[in-house]
């Protein structure tokens, strides 16, 4: 087992919802990153979770910035720290809306410029802060307040988009696997250049499940193969243990869908689409891991 530091950077009394995965993820991100770290946070749940001025529940400097601006803001910060001879970690902590939708231009620019930073997208598959509207990251079939009949379009393949920028490190993680997340953040921060971690964040109010089920929901996502844990260091892909097991013997994706209110009434077509996307993705990653493509 990896030794996880006892030091806490998320203080008690955040404004997060009960069972919030974003807070859980950030807790381990900061344990891995340590005190010499600045977070850049665009508009997202974490903007609220920190608390209300003059209080803050995060014990590293947090720079809150406009929705579309996180990766660009971090670019400037990273360059300024380097110019001043500082080795401070610059970490963007952004939701899926701020990453796959409004923030993708800045994200693309920062990765193209090989900005020395870590970009973490915690993905609850909708605009959570504004009350669960669909984002480009919402899966097909999911009901949100702007897709009351279920989303008709597939989830945007963010990882493929980021991978196309040839980052030095790219990984997926899940709130239900904090050890795995911790190790990935630690590894990412040892590398220079642009690093990216995409973390699945099962959201109790948004996905409509009870708040003690967050970890369980994350595990179901991985075991069903809908969320695959892997990492890619300078392009070399490794599929991580829990997903390797799931690829051999996945649980039915219905086991994952049926426990979430957002998928209530999902039709066969959408389920098949989710299944086939998951299978294709698994195949593709397996080939990459074997060095075939």
């Amino acid at each position, binding site marked *: 087992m990896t030794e996880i530091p006892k030091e806490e950077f998320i203080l008690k009394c955040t404004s997060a919802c009960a069972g919030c995965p974003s807070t859980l993820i950030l807790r381990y991100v900061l344990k891995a990153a340590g*005190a*010499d*770290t*600045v977070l*850049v946070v665009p508009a997202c749940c974490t*903007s*609220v979770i*920190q*608390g*209300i*001025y*003059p209080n*803050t529940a*995060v*014990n*590293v*400097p*947090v*720079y*809150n*910035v*406009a929705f*579309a*601006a*996180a*990766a*660009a*803001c*971090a*670019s*400037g*910060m*990273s*360059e*300024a*720290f*380097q*110019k*001043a001879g500082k080795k*401070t970690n610059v970490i963007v902590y952004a939701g899926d809306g701020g990453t796959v939708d409004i923030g993708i*231009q*800045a994200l*693309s*620019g920062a990765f*193209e*410029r090989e900005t020395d930073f870590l970009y973490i997208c915690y993905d609850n598959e909708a605009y959570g802060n504004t009350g669960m509207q669909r984002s480009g990251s919402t899966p097909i079939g999911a009901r949100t307040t702007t897709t009351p009949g279920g989303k008709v379009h597939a989830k945007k393949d963010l990882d493929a988009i980021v991978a196309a920028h040839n980052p030095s490190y790219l990984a997926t993680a899940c709130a239900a696997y904090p050890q795995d997340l911790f190790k990935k953040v630690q590894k990412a921060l040892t590398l220079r250049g642009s690093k990216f971690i995409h973390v699945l964040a099962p959201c109790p109010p948004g996905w409509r499940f009870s708040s003690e089920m967050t970890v369980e929901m994350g595990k179901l996502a991985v075991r069903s193969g809908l969320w695959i844990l892997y990492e890619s260091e300078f392009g070399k892909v490794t599929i991580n243990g829990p997903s390797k097991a799931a690829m051999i013997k996945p649980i039915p994706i219905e086991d994952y869908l049926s426990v979430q209110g957002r998928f209530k009434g999902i039709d066969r077509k959408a389920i098949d689409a989710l299944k086939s996307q998951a299978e294709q993705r698994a195949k593709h990653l397996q080939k990459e891991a074997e060095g075939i493509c």
Partner: protein
Amino acid sequence: MLTIATGNKAVAAAVKEVKPYVIAAYPITPQTEIVEQIAEYVTSGELDSRYIPVESEHSAMAACIGASITGARTFTATSSHGLLYMHEMVNWAAGARLPIVMANVNRAIGPGWNVWAEHTDAFQERDTGWLQVYVSTVQEAYDTTLMAFRIAEHADVILPVMVNLDGFLLSHSMQSLDTLNAGDFVPPLHLPHAIDVLNPAGYGTLTGPDEHFRFRWEIEKAMRRSRKVIAETERDFAERFGRSYGVAEEYRYEDADVVVIAMGTLGKEAEVAVDLLRNEGVNAGSLRIRWLRPFPDLDLSGREVVVIDRDYSFGFGGIIAQSLMARQRVDLYSVIAGLGGQEVTYDDIAGFVRERRPGTELWFGVNGNV
């Protein structure tokens, strides 16, 4: 060193002199020459700055914000649509009290595409909390850019400053330029609220109405204090380097019965019109407004005023004319001229004075008498 240069190159040379840590760059006509020249300086090693070739103006300002909050001196340049595209972050920079300096090469806003001079681009940013200054010569572009860093970073101000120069008319005109060894004229930046990992704080967290209101009042106070800082900076600049400009530059103003007010290159051209009118026996003078924010206190009492706005607010009029009328009772003839690079000669300006109709507004060249 004495040479000749374009307005754009003068701005770049001033930036080189104050050595920002971080410069964000995105091209747009007619500003591009500034970021190209700075790229040359950085590539050749003449300027040791981090040069971030961002993918948009929104990101240019965001990158400056990220750098500035670490305590780094930062610069960027833009124009027209670029300025409007970064509008959100322009607000952010001032709200976050970051002393970023930006050159804006004034250009009209589309549609249709028009790359020539007009002040409406920067005027759309006038309520953001940025100090704004408008220059009229290559030398003034250089001197004012140097002063902008000192004013922005002054402990009593800590607000961003936008240096405006007219697209093509000044950005691409070549005139003499005396570059300086600025020495300690611009002291090192000390940002009181710079990020410090040993003393972590949250920046821009959720803020209630009372605190929000207080922060806005702090910006207003800083804006008011900046008048004194501008005056001090001008005085010290004049003592060291022998040139001064003032918040508004007067020309044959003292005994003038009728005053032409304009900004940028039109303000210089107006001086030639004043000479013409004086030769005809008209007691004319001119006043070239340099600082739009903070807006100068001008005493125009007892004079007739002809204001030339290279800007407009639809349904409101020329913004300078309306701003002056809001502050004092004055017989004022409002002329909207020079939009989209419209040619306005000193003869035209003299004509505005000769045919002035106080209390009315003229849209020059389109039979626009209102």
